[in-house]
């Protein structure tokens, strides 16, 4: 299993293809397998070098006890790029991975060619959203309830609360929950639940609305047709100078799973357009 040392941690990563670099960043409680399951590795790898890695605390990467903010994890992304010799890359992030990608673009704009933001939700923009529209959270609550974890409806997608409940399961409820998520998944979740990830991921950590507006790179704001974060999509389109918005038909918050073919086709189309634009600019001597 390929691993790379970065930021004093060991990260599991995978690569496919050759060409301009694209780094893929998954969301919270996920792992890099999402990029294989939706075929992003194969499709993007036809004309690019695709690099996917497991975030800290996820998959086969190390799980430190703290430092899980988007700033911390943007530093991870840049350190991984350093360690792998990736000078510049287009960053593709799903959900919290999109927040990490944007934060990395602000910390080191010269390292980020373009951004694909798939259904991110930013702490600084959360006031824009009507949280009642998030059916995903309701589904998640129901799945958790079936597995023995009761989550309050007042605390939408509160990972801290969820992790707290998982940490205090006992007896029959612990067994049910373990059966529902599988033993390896359960062990990983328990490890993550004992970190500060839940609270850290909710923190703005310097990614204010003003800073979000400073993004100058080309951005694809890719949101599910029925995403709960469409107000964020519109905000990004209005406030970022080079942002285009596209919707993934039929998808809600998890477009890479809910409509993988359309999701990957839209990402690939954007990457190829950006690449063609850079070639043209290079021929004209403007870049």
């Amino acid at each position: 299993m390929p691993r790379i040392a970065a930021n004093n941690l060991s990260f599991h990563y995978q690569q496919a293809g050759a060409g301009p670099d694209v780094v893929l960043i998954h969301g919270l409680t996920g792992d890099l397998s999402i990029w294989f399951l939706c075929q992003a590795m194969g499709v993007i790898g036809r004309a690019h070098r695709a690099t996917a890695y497991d975030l800290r605390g996820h998959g086969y990467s190390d799980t430190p006890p703290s430092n899980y903010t988007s700033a911390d994890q943007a530093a991870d992304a840049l350190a991984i790029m350093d360690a792998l010799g990736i000078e510049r890359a287009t960053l593709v992030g799903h959900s919290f991975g999109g927040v990490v990608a944007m934060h990395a673009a602000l910390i080191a704009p010269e390292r980020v060619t373009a951004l694909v933001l798939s259904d991110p939700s930013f702490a600084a923009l959360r006031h824009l959203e009507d949280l009642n529209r998030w059916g995903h959270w309701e589904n998640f609550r129901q799945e958790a309830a079936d597995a023995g974890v009761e989550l309050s409806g007042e605390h939408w997608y509160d990972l801290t609360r969820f992790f707290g409940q998982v940490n205090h399961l006992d007896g029959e409820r612990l067994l049910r929950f373990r059966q529902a998520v599988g033993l390896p998944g359960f062990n990983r979740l328990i490890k993550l639940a004992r970190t500060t990830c839940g609270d850290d991921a909710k923190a703005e950590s310097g990614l204010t609305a003003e800073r979000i507006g400073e993004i100058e790179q080309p951005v694809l704001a890719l949101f599910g047709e029925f995403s709960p974060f469409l107000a964020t999509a519109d905000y990004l389109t209005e406030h970022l100078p080079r942002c285009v918005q596209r919707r993934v038909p039929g998808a809600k918050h998890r477009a890479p799973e809910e409509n993988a073919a359309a999701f990957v086709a839209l990402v690939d189309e954007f990457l190829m357009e950006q690449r063609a634009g850079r070639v043209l600019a290079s021929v004209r001597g403007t870049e």
Partner: protein
Amino acid sequence: MTGSPTKSQILKDVASVLENRLGVVSAADLERETRFFADLGLASIDAVVLGEAVQDHYQRPLPFNLLMAEIGGRADRDLAIGELVDFIEHHLNTV
């Protein structure tokens, strides 16, 4: 390695990889019908790592990207060990 391994040999190889590389304790009882996720309790990230370990074992690339994408398109997102064995056997025999 002389010649391509039989399906029963591949099943044994997969069991060995699961036990040694992924720590699956019940790998010796593996059958073709055993489900990767539902029965062994593994996750899709484990399938990525298994794919790599299998390629190491046979010392040649196999198109696991295609297999993962196919699993991603399934309603239950699961894989029977027999399907994995067939996939490996097919591609070991494809020049």
